């Protein structure tokens, strides 16, 4: 995987396809692999860049305080190094929070904004749920217990109850994390502190907001807060799906995403 040096960090990334640039930012848990299905679909007409945030995947891991603004600076640094001066910025969960900072700090870099299962400020339930997941990791200090206690926050009841094998695979994926727990903990705090809510009116780029109707981390409350404030936005709620609606209803998600991106041409 190619590596870009952004400040003190080695950021591992992948770049595929040609056409208008699409930069995809993953969330608190996981890494660039969260976006591989979407990258495979988009690369025939877009130049797609996915990467591991600092403190995730193979990128530099350091136990230090971090904010979503810091992570936005990393993304901007990566774009500059790759010579991307304008891109569709797609962020999932904390990645969407990061994307909001990019839109606020460097609006000229943003062709359009896609916020998936994301937030400008966590609502009370999201705050609680995110804290619960961090506390399991802090108390048990292993990824497997954290995984077992987290997954019901990621998928809806239908998926959880009817897809035991896929659930087991997700447990293994998260449970087998090699990432420094401290980095997760620091970034969890970054999410709790993230608050761009009162500045959303400044975001003028065309924006697609997507949320899961049953998501307890980024609930319809948090989604509504963004929908009301981002002027040039459309909002799509995936009924019956939760935080992982990209996976629970993959075809529908892909259709919404590509529909929106193609519209921006």
């Amino acid at each position: 995987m190619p590596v870009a040096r952004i400040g003190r960090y080695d950021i591992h990334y992948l770049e595929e396809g040609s056409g208008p640039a699409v930069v995809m930012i993953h969330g608190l848990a996981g890494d660039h692999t969260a976006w591989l299905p979407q990258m495979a679909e988009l690369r025939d007409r877009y130049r797609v860049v996915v990467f591991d945030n600092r403190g995730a995947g193979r990128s530099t891991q350091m136990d230090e305080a971090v904010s979503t603004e810091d992570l936005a600076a990393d993304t901007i640094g990566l774009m500059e190094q790759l010579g991307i001066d304008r891109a569709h910025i797609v962020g999932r969960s904390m990645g969407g929070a990061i994307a909001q900072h990019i839109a606020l700090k460097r609006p000229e870099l943003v062709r359009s904004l896609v916020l998936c299962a994301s937030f400008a400020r966590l609502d009370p339930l999201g705050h609680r749920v995110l804290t619960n997941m961090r506390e399991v990791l802090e108390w048990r200090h292993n990824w497997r217990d954290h995984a077992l206690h987290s997954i019901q926050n990621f998928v809806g009841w239908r998926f959880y109850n009817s897809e035991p094998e896929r659930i087991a695979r997700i447990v293994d994926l998260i449970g087998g994390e090699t990432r420094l727990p401290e980095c997760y903990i620091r970034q969890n705090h970054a999410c709790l502190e993230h608050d761009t809510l009162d500045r959303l009116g400044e975001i003028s780029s065309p924006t697609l907001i997507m949320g899961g109707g049953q998501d307890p981390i980024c609930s319809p409350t948090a989604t509504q807060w963004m929908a009301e404030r981002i002027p040039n936005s459309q909002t799509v709620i995936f009924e019956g799906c939760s935080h992982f609606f990209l996976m629970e209803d993959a075809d529908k998600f892909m259709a919404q995403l590509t529909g929106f991106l193609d519209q921006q041409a």
Partner: protein
Amino acid sequence: MSQINVNGGTLDAVEQGTGKPLLLLHSLLADRSVFDRVVPALAAGRRVVVPDLPGFGGSSSAGSAIEGFADRLAELFPALDLGSDTDVLGNGFGGFVASTLAIRHGHLFDRLVLADTGVEFSDAGKAAFHTMAGRVREHGMEGVVDIAMKRLFPDTFMEANPDVIAERREALVKTDPVLFAQACEALAALDLKASIGSIRNRTLVLVGGLDAATPPPMSHELARSIPGAELVELPGLGHAPMVQDPDGFVRAISGFLGLEAGARMRSV
């Protein structure tokens, strides 16, 4: 036609759109079609539910007390799975029903819009309803359509829009005279003074500056009586702003009901 059986009777209601429900209650001198010009815009972001009030169109009678009308409408909430995020908008008589619904069943819904209504009628106002009830019993609906149009619309609008007036007359004559008279009696008898102050739903009071049926002072009194209520006067409009100025009407309620954001949201 969408007839729904509820406790004690049937309600005929139509729906358009998806999202947070918005219940529209028409006035005495109209039926649910009075909202036709605004439903498309509202339905862009809301699940718009428009019933015929009891005694009108396909909805069965709920007697001649305003409480009966409100209690019957309350039945619609479980029947149509309307959650507590529903907003209710009532015009004229529909406004009195909406207020009574808020007084007796306010926990069922969120925000309240009262367009061209009030707390109670003056003695002259009450007498006018008795007169209308009498005329309807003697001459049928034809006996009141002319007065009705004058109550609904300013003269200048009537002169300039004969086709709209014809449409409204046609809708009104279809109303059952016996049940119309019941609604008149309900309006003559009502007095919400004692309980109007108990409304806890966030409320917007709207009134047309030229409303001849429920003049602005009635809305001023209403806004003063409901804790925290907002008041907006719409210049040049009469008792049926949703007919006279559909775009203006939607604009007037848009901020309060969060229609803008709603129109930019959809479920898949």
